[in-house]
């Protein structure tokens, strides 16, 4: 009996890794030009002479697909960290308005510098997004200090999100540079236009943050029993909470800086992964949520690209279609547990 859960988690990991790999290849294959799988394998083993295929894959599809993989994973882990912090499964960077805060600062910084003819590198955008997510996070924490009810917190988060989006739209509408057309795409959420420079920034940022988050899995495990017991198990609560907030803000800021706001991944994916693994142990969930988020965004990005090709959907539209029902499901099942289940 005792080995049941580790076995189930191990099986979950194997399945997720295989699916992520398969989707990675599928994402590279499908597009305006379909490229068969063997050509892709040939390309990576250095035996492809076709220059067009080479440049489609290496210059356009591979960076975009990697972005979906890395950022999708980052977003999902960011959501899991927030859920641990608030001890509530419906917390997430998008739901709490943290993504929208990041979006606003990125838009402001971009427009400010573009209008002065300065092109910003991706690192600076991540920094701007980080400031924005911390600002919204601070706002949410202020509210959570006053009201303990999660539903109120979520409503405040959603409203903050709307306010930030409205200001972003306004700023974009009044900015007149032609470069800002791109801004519009970005502010709707998209993985398109990712280049290798972006990947070079996001890989270290995301993976270092993930490692740090993974090192927090022990206090996170203790924190599942509530603050009092966690404290009694030797957790420095203050330091722990600040670390959680910072790490989750960095992850969601990184996603927003490169892909704009991406909805519901942070709430839906950790929940699905918990169900799949049959446990919510942080040490399993952090890598699990990363793989799950990566898979989810690889699938959603493919749908966004091909569903109405050549018109591309925003990534948020697709993730919302799959993610929002999961959120509703979580809320309904929690409610029925509260009122029906216990005797």
């Amino acid at each position, binding site marked *: 009996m005792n080995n049941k859960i580790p076995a189930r988690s191990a099986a979950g990991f194997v399945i997720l890794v295989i699916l992520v790999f398969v989707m990675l290849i599928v994402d590279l294959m499908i597009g305006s030009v379909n490229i068969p799988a063997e050509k892709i394998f040939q390309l990576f083993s250095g035996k492809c002479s076709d220059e067009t295929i080479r440049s489609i894959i290496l210059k356009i599809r591979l960076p975009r697909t990697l972005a979906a993989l890395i950022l999708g994973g980052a977003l999902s882990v960011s959501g899991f960290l927030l859920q641990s912090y608030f001890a509530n499964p419906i917390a997430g960077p998008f739901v709490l308005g943290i993504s929208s805060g990041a979006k606003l600062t990125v838009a402001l910084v971009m427009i400010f510098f573009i209008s002065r003819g300065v092109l910003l590198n991706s690192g600076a955008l991540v920094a701007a997004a980080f400031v924005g997510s911390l600002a919204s996070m601070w706002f949410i924490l202020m509210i959570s200090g006053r009201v303990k009810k999660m539903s109120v917190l979520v409503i405040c988060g959603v409203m903050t999100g709307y306010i930030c989006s409205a200001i972003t739209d306004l700023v974009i509408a009044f900015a007149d540079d032609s470069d800002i057309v791109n801004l519009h795409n970005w502010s709707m959420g998209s993985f398109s236009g990712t280049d290798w420079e972006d990947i070079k920034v996001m890989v270290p940022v995301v993976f270092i943050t993930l490692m740090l988050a993974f090192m927090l899995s022990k206090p996170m495990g203790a924190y599942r029993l509530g603050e009092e017991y966690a404290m009694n198990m030797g957790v420095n609560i203050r330091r722990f909470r600040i670390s959680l907030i910072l790490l989750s803000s960095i992850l969601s800021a990184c996603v927003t800086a490169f892909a704009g706001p991406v909805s519901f991944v942070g709430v839906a994916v950790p929940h699905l992964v918990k169900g799949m693994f049959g446990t*919510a142990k942080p040490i399993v969930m952090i890598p699990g949520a990363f793989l799950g988020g990566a898979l989810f965004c690889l699938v959603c990005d493919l749908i966004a690209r091909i569903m109405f090709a050549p018109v591309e959907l925003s990534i948020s539209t697709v993730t919302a279609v799959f993610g929002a029902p999961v959120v509703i499901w979580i809320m309904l099942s929690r409610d029925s547990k509260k009122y029906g289940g216990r005797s």
Partner: protein
Amino acid sequence: MNSKITAKELSVGYGRRVILSGIELKIQAGEIVSLIGPNGSGKSTLLRSIAAQLKTIAGCIYIDDSSISGMKENDIAKKLSIVMTNRIDPELMTCEEVVEAGRYPYTGRLGILSENDHMIVRESMESVRISELKNVSFGSISDGQRQRVMLAKAICQEPEILILDEPTTFLDIRHKLELLSLLKILAREKNITVIMSLHEIGLAEKISDRVICIKDKGIHRQGRPDEIFSRDYINELYDIDDELLELAGHQGLV
């Protein structure tokens, strides 16, 4: 002999609001101490302060000879474990996983339990007779069972001091007796100091080596059970006056 827990001129409370002041404690290793007193008198506040969950307002609490405010969280965790009244609702955790959390202070960076840790977890679960709940979800068991799971968690933390806030609240009479005899065994055999708040003064009288009465923002009286449990004093402690006694007597309650 040095005492296990010492408090000198201690004031406890929340923020600046003082709940209890002028507290002097000297509790020996292996002693069973009960806190009694009316609702809201500050028993839990004192327990939470001793457990280093609340900052003291004035004065100091010492475990052995070191002040708890100067100790590292993890070192306190190895000496002192708690069972509190608040309900916890962890997601997807089995009872065994909850108990395992008690070993965290002893594990490495990632909190992975060794074979020895697992053995201690098993023993703790056996000692409170919840081995059969091992793989049962913590969310699906009764309040009494939860209480015992939390006690197993506290025991497997291998504390020198065990702090319990109203540990008998959700238990039926049989489990109450079981719990108290277990505490007695822990105190006598492992020399664990037990400090708890109790509402049932009858139980407090039977189990305690010492009773501390909390009233009027401080320790009202402390001593051996036979020094405390006179009818007059209990009536005074709980503000039971003649009028109430007479009324209750009329209804056949006393």
